[in-house]
């Protein structure tokens, strides 16, 4: 078994203070490994997004430790955590949050610009990545000119632009129709299996359960059930939606 890229241990997290203090995660331990799709499932308010934020180095846990490639990161300051995210994580957000004033290519280039990649190289790579996700014909379109599915693929290309070893996606199928949603999830699975990336997906969509290698059910801030899923290797590509 390969070493975990992210290992969270004894994670407890609370919001507020005093009488308003609310604990949303209770003593959670979890490992994320390269080459696997890990799904965090659970109903709204179960704490899965908070857990994603913590293992994605976006949020410091109230208690517990987070290790990234074996290095403790749970006590780093905000800017150091940001630098870690830049180096190790790619994020796909539910609402995509593309810059409406930038074309699809330019939106992907932002991720490369953050890394200091030269503009000409960034431009070329962005176009290649967009072609990879099936948007080679939409390179110069603005988000307003794209469908929701296409926007999400721009967001995926942006997440992949910096070649991150860990991909994190929050409800990636929530705003997509069934067919497009399934294609997106299959694509994530391929990224894990073919590229040996760790993919963590937060969802409460039962349709995509079968694409996970592991499913962790979060209930009331605790791990309720931990499943290993077996399935055939993925072989699809992302098509138009």
């Amino acid at each position, binding site marked *: 078994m390969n070493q975990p890229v992210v290992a969270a241990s004894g994670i407890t997290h609370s919001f507020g203070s005093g009488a308003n203090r609310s604990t949303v995660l209770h003593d959670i331990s979890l490992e994320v490994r390269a080459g696997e799709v890990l799904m965090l499932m659970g109903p709204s308010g179960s704490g899965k997004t908070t857990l994603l934020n913590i293992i994605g180095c*976006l949020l410091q846990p109230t208690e517990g430790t987070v290790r990234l490639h074996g290095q403790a990161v749970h006590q780093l300051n905000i800017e150091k955590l940001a630098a870690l995210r830049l180096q190790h994580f790619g994020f796909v957000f539910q609402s995509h*949050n593309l810059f409406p004033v930038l074309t699809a290519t330019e939106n992907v280039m932002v991720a490369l*610009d953050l*890394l200091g990649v030269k503009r000409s190289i960034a431009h070329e790579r962005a176009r290649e*990545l967009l072609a990879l996700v099936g948007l080679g014909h939409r390179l110069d379109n603005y988000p307003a000119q794209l469908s929701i599915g296409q926007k999400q693929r721009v967001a995926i290309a942006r997440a992949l632009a910096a070649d991150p070893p860990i991909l994190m996606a929050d409800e990636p199928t929530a705003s997509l129709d069934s067919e497009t949603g399934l294609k997106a999830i299959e694509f994530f699975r391929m990224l894990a299996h*073919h590229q040996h990336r760790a993919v963590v997906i937060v969802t409460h969509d039962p349709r995509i359960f079968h694409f996970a290698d592991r499913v962790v059910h979060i209930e009331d801030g605790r791990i309720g059930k931990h499943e290993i899923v077996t399935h055939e290797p993925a072989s699809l590509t992302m098509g138009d939606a």
Partner: protein
Amino acid sequence: MSSVNSLGQLTEGVRRPTTAAHGQSGLTLLIAWRNLVHDRVRFAVTLVGIAFSTVLMGIQLGMLLNFMHTTSTIVDHANADLWIAVQGVRSVDLATPIEERRRFQALSVPGVAAAESMLLQFGSWKRNNGVRELVLNIGVEPFAEMGLVPDMVPDVDIHDALSVPNGVIIDRLYADKLGVHSLGQTVEINDHRARVVGFTNGIRTFTQAPYVFTTLKNARHFTNRSENDITYVLIRVKDGFSKEEVARELKRRMPDVDVLNTDEFSFKSRWYWLFTTGAGITLVSSSLLALMVGVVIVAQTLYASTLDRLPEYAVVRAMGGPSSYLYKIVIKQAIIGGVIGGVVGITIVLVLAYISRDSSSPPQVPFWLASSIGIVTILMCICASLVSLKKVMSIDPVKVFR
């Protein structure tokens, strides 16, 4: 459609550099520009606000500069090194007479190359139609080397012009005001006949009492002053002598008068009119007000634009982008607005200054002032972005996953 198997090759060249020098590709400038022009109406309002602020600043400061120059123009153009005046003199236009013996006393001081008398006295100029105008008579020696204005139109020798009996010289800017239509025209000053024998070029007065250059004798005659009355002794210091030393010696020998060098007297005259009266303060405060108006307009526009982009900015932070990346976007927005609005504003100021160049008090906008206003406009816009920067600082990247 591409195969996912090509992803490894694809991303091979995008391996991150060991040190991330982010934002070097000019993308932040592109985002800043697109953020601004995305809402064209808002952008137009912003530019109008910045340009308005710049025009207001430019005109007020141009007027202030003109005001400063006109308050000391006689001193600045006199070509003298030192001035002897009544004790406590506050401005070149407001001195009371001293005795002419001061000139002879000055001539006896080592280092004094020349000492010439000058008389400044207000008088009443009567136009041919009977209307009277207040003028300031300036009388100098017939062959004076100091206290005269060299720039005459047409190009005649000022001494030749003043040799005409009862001859006076006025500035052509005030010819209409004084009812003068041609050289040789006869007028009255304090009911004494005078003849216009020349025009100076661009010697403005801030008191709206035009300067009338004439001989010392004529000036005394026009203003009913005695043969002994003068207002100033203008001193030229010999080569090899220090102006400060000569001034000290003059002061030592004449402790009951003021001895000022040209720079001191010029500054004193400007200071008096700028700050003792309310005129200068009004212009300065108007300029500051214009600056504040600009800050408010730019600040609210930038803030609104920043609020519109908060979700995207939060994503940049979540992706690991440093705060400085977002600061660059906001500050570049401010600078773009400042540059475009500033250029428009300064152009308007220069056009207005050009159109009003022949008026009695046109704004003076030299290159250094136009450049300074441009820089202040950009700084103003950057300051206005502070509110937005504070908002950007408070962005919580966690919110994008909620």
